[in-house]
């Protein structure tokens, strides 16, 4: 049985607690980074949702898990709104696969 984690600032992630997800509020980016590593390493968390506001400053860490099946690190907009990073990620994978942005 796998777990689903949500990582981000307190206000953005608190609501997910009602759904029964593993919520990990982080006050600083540094803390978010550490939590991401612990979650990724325990092997029980299959999906980690990270708010874009934090993800913007954790590019390297997130890129590290791009090619592994577990965990899937998925960006979601935080309370500050979407930064368009999620969409940019899709474009990045197209570019990686095709060599150019064809869409």
């Amino acid at each position, binding site marked *: 049985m796998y777990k689903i984690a949500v990582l981000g600032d307190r206000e953005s992630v608190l609501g997910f607690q*009602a*759904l*029964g997800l593993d919520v990990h509020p982080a006050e600083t980016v540094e803390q978010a980074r550490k939590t991401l590593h612990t979650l990724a390493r325990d092997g029980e968390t299959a999906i980690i*949702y990270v708010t874009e506001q934090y993800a913007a400053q954790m590019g390297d860490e997130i890129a590290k898990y791009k*090619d592994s*099946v577990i965990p899937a690190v998925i960006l979601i*907009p935080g*309370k500050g709104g*979407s930064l368009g990073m999620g969409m940019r990620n899709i474009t990045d994978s197209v570019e990686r*696969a095709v060599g150019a942005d064809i869409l």
Partner: protein
Amino acid sequence: MPSAQVNATRMELTRQKRKLATSSRGHKLLKDKRDELMKQFLDLIRENRALRKKVEEGLMQAHGSFTVASALMSSEMLEQSLLYPKQSVDLDMSFQNIMSVNVPQYQFTTRSADSGEVYPYGFATTSGELDSAVDALSSVFEDMLKLAQIEKACQLMAEEIEKTRRRVNALEYVVIPDCQSKIKSISMKLDENERNNTIRLMKVKDMMLNAEIEERRRRTAEAISQSQD
């Protein structure tokens, strides 16, 4: 492409020919794999985009309600209300093989099937906006899971396509031309050797013939001088 030192032997020629055949076959197969992967990848990407847009919109709506709720309630109250969730989610994962890429498939089960059971708090002390925030989140949650599945699949397939593309290019532009030039140079060298040999044999035959003609002439002259005596 100038090949490195090759032995100009028949054995090497056979080896290179076999290598060329394998490479061409591999090149064709990998190219087909790349094309099919690309086709499936583009379908997935389209789906991914649409889903992400939907999820982002849903989440923004939930965040909006949540912000209002947190303005109406004290943060302690808010946290307290959400502290013990009624609902819990179990996630199961299986794998689907898309063109040799293992892509995760998520199945989730919620503890209580009733969607009205998501509110972990009493309604007396909480704001109505919190209800709509939780409602919005629970309705977008299924799409969020689907998004996770598709987005991971896209990432994994992008990696595989990149690898396959590199392999196809390496075969097409390095391995196969290299092999062809090696085969050409070996067969040219072998032909050259063959001609050398023929010429040598012709020369030797010439020399032997000449010697024989000399010998016969000498004998005829001897015979003539004897009969004159």
